[in-house]
């Protein structure tokens, strides 16, 4: 019997100034990436509370990616540095909890990097798809 | 050993990153042994970077460095050229029979006032 192909569910948090604009540019240039990626707009990557990432996994997301301005280019001076440090902590904790490192990612995408946005999403979806469905942390009561 | 492997070995032994060099030439400007050298300190850096180690290995310049560390202290980019000279010299004299100075050579070079320190140092630099 053939297994039904698992379509991963990816939540992407994108900062308004660089990465969200990069995602828009990918659209302008018609650069394809899988529809499994759903973007949530935040003013700055530093607005992403680790709770949001946990919530996504709890609700059945298979991968979470956070995109921000390149280090040194943050619209809010230093926000992405906070993100980098916070997420380093969170990701290692998630890894400890059994959520594979590959399911989480932090990536710097500038407003000019539409191609990088698409390539990153293609790669991320492919990586997460290989890992299969994420069962850890998933709270079945939420279903 | 080909030049590429030699380059790797020299970089490993010396711990120097020649890419840091901005080619100002201050090492050669400060070197007290400059006029005795065929290849000068800045050329050591450049030639190691470009992988031309064999020319350096065959040069007497290896034995002219005084290990006075002036190039190390005065380099604005912290490249430490003397460490490269040292590494290349060792690559050479570590091979059997490649000693630059042997015990037999010493008596002719001595005078009665010469401090032990000179002989010890020269041996350390010139032979293995």
């Amino acid at each position, binding site marked *: 019997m053939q297994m039904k192909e698992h379509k991963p*569910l990816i*939540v992407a948090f994108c900062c*308004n100034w660089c990465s*969200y*604009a990069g*995602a*828009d540019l*990918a*659209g*302008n240039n*018609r*650069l*394809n*990436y899988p*529809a499994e990626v*759903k*973007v*949530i*707009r*935040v*003013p*700055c990557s*530093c*607005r*992403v*509370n*680790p709770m*949001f990432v946990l*919530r*996504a996994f709890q*609700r*059945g*997301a298979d991968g979470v990616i956070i995109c921000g301005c390149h280090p040194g*280019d943050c619209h*809010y*001076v*230093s*926000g992405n540095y*906070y993100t980098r440090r*916070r997420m380093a902590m969170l990701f290692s904790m998630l890894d400890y909890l059994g959520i594979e490192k590959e399911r989480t990612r932090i990536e710097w995408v500038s407003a000019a990097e539409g191609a990088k946005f698409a390539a990153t999403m293609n790669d991320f979806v492919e990586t997460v798809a290989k890992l299969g469905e994420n069962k850890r942390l998933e709270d079945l009561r*939420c279903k | 050993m080909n030049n590429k492997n030699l380059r790797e070995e020299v970089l490993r032994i010396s711990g120097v990153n020649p890419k*840091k060099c901005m*080619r*100002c*030439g*201050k090492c*050669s*400007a*400060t*070197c007290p042994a400059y*006029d005795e050298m065929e290849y*000068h300190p*800045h*050329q050591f850096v450049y030639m190691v970077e470009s992988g031309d180690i064999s020319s350096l290995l065959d040069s007497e310049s290896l034995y002219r460095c005084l290990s006075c560390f*002036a190039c190390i202290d*005065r*380099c*604005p*980019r*912290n490249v430490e050229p003397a460490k490269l000279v040292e590494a290349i010299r060792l690559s050479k004299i570590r091979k059997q029979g490649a000693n630059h100075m042997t015990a037999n050579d010493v008596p002719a070079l001595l005078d009665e006032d010469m401090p032990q320190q000179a002989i010890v140092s020269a041996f350390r630099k010139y032979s293995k």
Partner: protein
Amino acid sequence: MQRIGVFVCWCGSNIAGTVDVKAVAEALKNEPGVVFSTNYQYMCSQAGQDMIKAAIAGHKLGGIVVCSCSPRMHEATFRKTASQAGINPYMVEIANIREQCSWVHKDMATGTEKAIILGKAAVAKVNLNTPLTPGESPVTKRALVIGGGIAGIQTALDIADAGFPVDIVETKPTIGGKMAQLDKTFPTLDCAACILTPKMVEVAQHENIRIFSYSEVSEIKGFVGNFDVTIKRKARYVKEDICTGCGACVEKCPMKKIPNEFNLGMDNRSAVYIPFAQAVPKVATIDPNACNMLKNGRCGICAKVCTAGAIDYTQKDEYIEEKYGAIVAATGFNPISMDKFDEFAYSQSKDVITSLEFERLTNAAGPTAGKLLRPSDGKHPHTIVFVQCVGSRCSACTEKGKEYCSKICCMYTAKHAMLTRDKYPDTEVYVFYIDVRTPGKNFDEFYRRAVEEYGVNYIKGMVGKVTPEGSKLKVQASDLIANKQLHIDADLVVLAAAIEPDKSARPLATMLTASMDTNDFFTEAHPKLRPVESPTAGVFLSGTCQGPKDIPETVSQAGAAASKVIGLLAKDKLTGNPCIAKSDEWMCNGCSSCGKVCAYGAITYEEKEFRLPDRTTKIRRVASVNPAVCQGCGACTVTCPSGAMDLNGFTTTQIMAEVDAICK
């Protein structure tokens, strides 16, 4: 629960080509709160907007979701539409189903599926939206310029010419800064004083400008439009408004052996002094560390000879408080200390000098009246060696010097070399360079003239050691192109010392909560697009305090900073961005975590009285966000351990709702 209307745009075939817009509108009809859902070809068109307005009125909508192009494109449009229809503009959310859906997915089924999910997320969010009103704050129509060099002078003049009052605070007794010390300026060789001093006079006479010389900023409070600044006016022991600058006191002062800062210690001044003839204000100042009267009460000659009666030995430091709408930092630069570069023998020989000292030596108003004479013996030097990049472009791990290129040295060295050869053709001039960097109008031509017409010897290489011997300076250097070590017997060695921000910049940045880079240069709000603004609202940057610059660059930046200040002061009220942080005072425990991560200094703490349920009161320390300063990044919301801090427009519950909607 809101009454929500959903409007799905076709964008012609841009969206409708890969997204079944009717299916999307249909699917969203059943979402909680949605009472109306429709689709239309072009929502952004007048007809589309009218349709939205009609629906808002007809269905008594409290919030709307527009499924269309990116919010970066038309969020503002639809907010205006909502506003015109009588609902709060911040009750609008956009689901981006074009750039991030129809344009990147080819298949109608997946496109539609994703568009529905994005729509649901937007509906979930708008359900939690609350009306937001931007805050307003008044603007004090007065600017403060800190630093009275050419940067501060130009900024102040431009602001004052636009009709706004400006105060200049300068720590030295006179304005003028480094430019006043220069002889000629590259590449035109016009004399610095001839172009600067008229500007200084203009500043002094401008009805909109006040100069606080010999003064420092000691405290800054407040925020954009409303700064409260305390200025310390150091006692100069001379009544500024009475002194006529006649110089009688200077002439008669018996303490004549005080190193003259203006000439970099190459000659002496008296204890009561006027830094230079064209000083503004042209008022004497008594150096309290040198004056006998002030030190031990034995003298008083200056008071006797002053016919105006301006001398006042009892003067005290004075503090004045003033309100400003905008602050411009123009604190400038200094050459770095040569202490760590003594291979060039700067501490060992008077004839090894820095380029700024060379400027004074060739300046007609300098210690040698413009004659190029050696500081050691007053003889004319016949061989001069210029060394470039002393302390510039050093690796950080050498722990001496600066990593950056100081930018101005190549050009001023070419100028020095050229002028020397021009005035004294019998002088042999060598310039040791690593690279000659001349990007600027007529810069390379200027440098080539030094070489080709004036016969300056440019040698690619560096000086390794300078040894004073007898009356000579033995220069040992490398000539990389000839592959030779050179030995030159020089009479004078000139070091092109790196420049660094003035030491006052860092404490000032702390007072301003303005950010700095590792080299203590002020950071701009955006390196490309907002180069004259600090990330801190209301603080602007002028001149070399932001990075190495030559005079024309400094003047253009000064003008740019002025225009930004004028733009700010022209407003009667500042309208803020309502999407800013807010703190729940009942949850806040005053731990200061939020204040530490705020890049703008928008968060302050106050002791506040709380009435408890048992009717007692308690004083607690709580965070308070200044709406005029907060930029709305959200760093504080995540760092807050008690969850008291939230961000309007992007609240925790809103984002959680979006996550839930996407993951459902």
